[in-house]
Structure formats: C-alpha cells, structure tokens
C-alpha cells in the first residue's frame, strides 16, 4: 500500500506540486485552472485524484507533493467518507502543515447534507486548516485559488524563513480566535 510521504523525493528547482483529492472531477478542474491563471514566479504542477492511494505505476513520474488539498463537497456525504478513507494513506509527517481541507458548495445553504461541525472536528483532529468556499462563483473561486497558491508557496519552502509548520500554527491560532 503506497503511502504518501512528504520527503521521499528531491524537490524540483523553484517549483511546487499540488495534489487535489476529491470526488467531483469537474470542480477540481475548475479550481486547477483558476490556480494556473494566477500570477506567480515559480513553476507549478497540479495533480488531481479521486482518492488515495495513488496508483503506483506512475510513481516515478510524479514530483514531490508539497501540499495536499482534500476537497469535501458539502452536498454529498460520500465525499466526506471518501476523504476520511484516503486520510489513512497519508504519512503522519504530512500533517505538519502540508494538508488542507477545502469544503466546497457552501453557497447553497438548503442543500447541505454534512454539518460544518463535523468538518471542523475533522480539521481539528488532523491539525490542519479548513477552508470554506463556493467554486461556482467566480470571485470566490479566484480568491480560493490565490489562498491555495500562497499556501503552496509556503509549503514548498519558497518563502524564506517561514516553514509549513509555522504557517499551520499561525492559521490555527487565528482560527481559534
């Protein structure tokens, strides 16, 4: 069983890799495109998967993953279950700031089938930040892409003096307030 490890490969020069794990492929595509449209000064590669573990055939072609974003759709309970099942295939050291939970579809209030409480508890249990967004709205999509890009930059170590761990602690303290 292939477990994702944060430092099993050497990093690429001035580049970062993002992994989106979620059940809605169309939404993942949209988000990936929004991220790629942002202005940046480093190379970026976005990988999309529906669940972990990743197929091991293409393991040698994949770069080192810097940030994993687990996408949970608030309208479907099975996306939450899918994410929970995938979490078992991630090495513990990834959770030191290189994992983030993204809850999509919060714009439609009357179609929620997952409670935000449950998602927040999940985020707390895995010491990772939880972001809420509505990817159907263009403005929110662009803002989320910018946030994720910034997080990716930090997790890939491209911001001098600031590590992923310190960033996650910063996020957590501000969220608790």
């Amino acid at each position: 069983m292939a477990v994702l490890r944060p430092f099993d490969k050497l990093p690429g020069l001035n580049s970062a890799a993002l992994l989106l794990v979620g059940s809605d492929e169309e939404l993942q595509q949209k988000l990936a495109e929004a991220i790629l449209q942002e202005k940046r000064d480093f190379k970026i590669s976005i990988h999309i998967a529906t669940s972990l573990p990743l197929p091991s055939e293409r393991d040698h072609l994949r770069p080192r993953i810097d940030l994993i974003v687990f996408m949970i759709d608030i309208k479907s309970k099975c996306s939450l279950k899918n994410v929970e099942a995938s979490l078992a295939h991630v090495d513990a050291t990834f959770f030191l700031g290189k994992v983030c939970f993204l809850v999509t579809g919060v714009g439609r209030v009357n179609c929620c089938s997952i409670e935000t409480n449950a998602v927040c508890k999940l985020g707390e249990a895995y010491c990772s930040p939880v972001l809420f967004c509505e990817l159907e709205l263009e403005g929110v999509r662009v803002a989320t892409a910018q946030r994720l890009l910034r997080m990716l930059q930090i997790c890939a170590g491209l911001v001098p003096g600031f590590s992923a761990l310190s960033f996650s602690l910063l996020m957590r303290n501000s969220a608790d307030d």
Partner: protein
Amino acid sequence: MAEPISAEPTSELCPVDAKKELLMECNNIWEELEECQSKLMLLGIETLLQSDTKLALLMLQWKALTVDYQECHERSPETISTNPDVLLELGKEELQKVKNDLEKVLSAVCSKNKQLEEDLEREQQWYEEQEQMLNTLNRIEEETKPQVEQLYKTRGLEELHNKLLQLKTYRKELLSALGEFLDEHFPLPQDSGSAIKRNFSSEPAVELLALQDILEILINKLMATPHEPYVTINESFWPPYIELLLRFGMALRHPEDPNRMRLEAFHK
C-alpha cells in the same frame, strides 16, 4: 528539515567569480539536501489511526517545534554570500518588492479615501435636502395655520344654522296651516248624519283616520323610502277620501295591486 533554496539573481553585471561563488554554494547546499533526503528515506512510514489522531499529531508537532527551536538558538542566520555585487543585486530586488507592495497599499487606501469622500458628500447633500424640506414644510404649516383658524370661525356655519332654523319654522307653519285647512274642509266622517247607508259600511269598530293623517302617512312613506313609496290601504282609510285623492291626482294606485297607493311625487 530541508533548507529552502532562494532564487538566484540572474544578472550579467556580476563578475564571473561572483557567479562561480554562488554556483559552488548552491551545489554545497544541494549535496547537504541529498544527504538529509537519504537519511529521511531510512525513517519508517507512520500512518495515523482514526482514534487518537489529534494526540499523535500534537506530539509530532511538539517534537518538530522543539527541534526547530533548538536550531534557532544554535544557528545564527548567515548571509548567502559576502560578495558585494551579489548583495547589491539582492538588496535592489528586495527594495523593489517592498516598493511594489507599498504602492499597492497606497492605491488601495487612496481609492478607499475617495469612496469615503464621495459617500460623505452624498450624505451631506441628502442632509441638506432634508433640512430644506423640513423648513419648507414648517413654513407651509405656519402659513396655513391662520387660514385654518379662520375657517373654524363659525361665520359660514352660523349662516347655515340660521338658514336651517328658518326652514324648520317655515315647515312647521306650512304643516299647521295644512292641518287646519284639512280639519275645516275635510273632517272625519261622523256616524250620525252621514249619507252612507248602514248596510254598506258596517265597520263602526275601526277608527277612521283623518285626511290629515292619511296624507301624513303617504308623505312620510314617500320621503323615507323613495324606492318603495307604496302604502297598503287598510280599513282605517275612509274610501271616499281615497277616491278624492285619486281623482284630484294627489295620489296614485299601484299599477298591479289595487290595494296599494302612493303619493304623487310633486318634488321631482
């Protein structure tokens, strides 16, 4: 943990040895990185159970932070190179970045200022308009106050009162004159001395109404309910009087019902 590699400044102004120096330093750092990487690969994989993830993760975080803390204490930050050209280039880049950021902040604050000023102006204008409106309304109120007071004075009302009284007295006079006239010329038929044979009118028990009363009933019915002016003829109406009224056109019979009659509407 792995050290971040910052981007090299690409500048042809740097003399060749500065570039070489930087490249050598980068290579050294890369070798260190590979060493750390191989050491990390030897560490085992650790996945989290579902039950006590938070505790395990917090322990891990604590360990990592203590290591970081120790390193911060032991190591002092060193510059990437002591070559003055390199430092100059780096300094320029940093200052440029800061300048850009500050410019962005400046433009954001300026536009916000402008918005606030526009809002303030709009609010002030609205306030002035409201004040003007208030003043105008006050003025109108003051102007119309004396007029209203005048109207309340009962000059017109008194006139109407007087007219009403006059009409009422006139009406009374008319009615009493009519009553006198009717009593004199059309009295109630007496039982004795009447030309009617006893055989026909055998209703001594019924009290006959005077013509005055008949007329009163008819007038009242017409005035009270103009849409239904017909009065049913009952036995207290003396038939000759009815014939009298009918013959002189004062009253009319109901077109379909011979037992009903009405006063002619002279006022229409």
